[in-house]
């Protein structure tokens, strides 16, 4: 297994022991995120929908690359990679 650094965005640090990053062992981005939420279960609802898919506004990068343009959660990671979680911001008046 590779050791990767998952950066925790400021709004979610309260659910990750106030840490700005968590080191996890993983071979893919999906495994890295799973390992993160196994350690810090309260993060799950802010990253994933009830059906287990990443929330639409949650973007994940390996180093500087958006995983949507790689192999999504199956994107492989290597030792020393940094996984970042960046929200896109959306809203509106509704109807």
């Amino acid at each position, binding site marked *: 297994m590779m050791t990767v650094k998952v950066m925790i965005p400021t709004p979610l640090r309260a659910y990750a022991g106030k840490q700005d990053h968590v080191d996890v062992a993983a071979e893919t981005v999906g495994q890295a995120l799973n390992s993160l939420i196994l350690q810090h279960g309260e993060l799950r609802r802010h990253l994933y929908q009830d059906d287990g898919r990443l929330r*639409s506004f949650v973007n994940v990068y390996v180093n500087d690359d958006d995983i949507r343009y790689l192999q999504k959660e199956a994107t492989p990671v290597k030792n020393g990679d940094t996984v970042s979680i960046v929200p896109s911001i*959306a*809203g*509106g008046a*509704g109807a």
Partner: protein
Amino acid sequence: MSMRLRLTAEVREAIREHGARGYPNEVCGALLGSEASDGEFREVTALVPLENRREDSARNRFSLTADDVRRAERAAAEKKLELVGWYHTHPDHPARPSEFDREHAWPWYSYIILGVAEREPGEMTSWRLADDRSGYAAESIEVA
């Protein structure tokens, strides 16, 4: 918790002016400032107005890309401030968070909503999402 958000008069006016200028579309931007150690009091001292990326329904939706967010984070770091939240307008709608807002929010951020009625800026409110995503708590706004 009783959460308070202090805006400088310039920041408040800049949000109102941006909302009026963008009407009838929604406008949005980032709030930069600092937070007291208790986490309940924040001061917003600068803004990063951003472009609403929604072209299809910009009158009742706004969106910012992850690149916009990273740019706002860099702007905050350069000013030695934190990115503490976001503002957006509700043209011809009340300054209350919608269900759509709730689905797309994270806790911790302050979300300012400005109602704009017929180009006239109106009520300004601020909200924080609950830890369990069930709803929002209002955050009182003070103007320094």
